[in-house]
């Protein structure tokens, strides 16, 4: 599984299939601060990701006072 993260941009690889919940736990990412996207589609917290999945973990926190 190839996992792309942003801010800072980096790529992490895993050999096995796993759930989104487990993936976020492994990466120590707060589920409330990100979206998990696979093939352009949102993936829910309880979904299973196959071992060959390409996954984007997109941060949703934006900054700068208006």
């Amino acid at each position: 599984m190839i996992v792309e993260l942003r801010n800072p941009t980096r790529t992490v690889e895993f050999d096995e299939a796993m759930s989104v919940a487990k993936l976020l736990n492994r990466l120590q990412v707060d589920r409330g601060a990100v979206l998990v996207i696979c093939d352009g589609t949102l993936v829910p917290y309880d979904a299973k990701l196959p071992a060959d999945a390409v996954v984007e973990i997109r941060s949703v926190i934006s900054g700068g006072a208006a």
Partner: protein
Amino acid sequence: MKCRVCRGPAVIDLKRHNANFCPEHFIRFCNQQVEKAIGEYDMFAKDDRLLVAVSGGKDSLAVWAILVELGYQADGLYIGLGIENYSDVSGQYAKEFAEARGLHLHIVDLVDEYGYDVPNGAKAAKRVPCSACGLSKRHIFDRVALENGYDVLVTGHNLDDEAAVLFGNVLHWQAEYLARQHPVLPERDGMPRKVKPLVRLDEREMAAYCVVSGIDYMLDECPMSAGNSHLRYKDALNLVEQASPGTKQAFFHKFLSQGAPFFAEAGDEKRAELGTCATCGGPTPNDVCAFCRLVERAGGQPVKLTRGPSRSGSTPTQQTVTAEP
């Protein structure tokens, strides 16, 4: 995980609502939250002309899309701030969004029109970049709305933004700022009403709305905002939210319903002192407004405000992008 409405496969869970949604019902949920905010705070009517301030980011593009979907007359305004490559890329997202949907986008470039950019303006005025940026944007929002007859200026501030600002204002007991913190700032001195229809939706919901709706938006953060206090306040609130979902919503919305009245007087006192800027003609408590002072220090040229003939016509003075659908 099943959708709360149709029991089909859900794509997002909203812990603070204890609900999951499929794409279709998530879009409907977002539209309903915006409609609820518009009604709850009496933001505008169906026949008002709206100007949406767009940055190319998720919130501003989402609020523009939702307002158009709900049947409002909404044009966009993009301001080129001259920030490294960031401004060029973010502007491209705004233009592509407008062109793909046949929407009208005003474009104002700080360098072309005023002769300075945010990084140099901030240095010259000895302000932090976010302060110079916010000051510039607020002035241009007013100017474009006034010159083109818009009734209302819409911004994409979401629940997280408002909760973070409230947190900062409370930490420093900024009574005057607390008095002004509301989803609607009424029109005054000819300046348009300013509204925040996304105050019932958080950042994750807005990012999810864009993904589900196929809206491409600027993912990179402004390089000048790194380390600002607004982001620290968001981080702090997110830690609390993680343990107690719904805390941010309660913090902000209960402030509006229960806390805000205690600060109203502080705002009234400040509002009574405004006069007219000798340089641009905009409202200011001083002889010359803060924006014109910033432009002067940055070596730029101020622009005189010219009020449009009425709120029914359009007299564009900026570059505009309009595409047929």
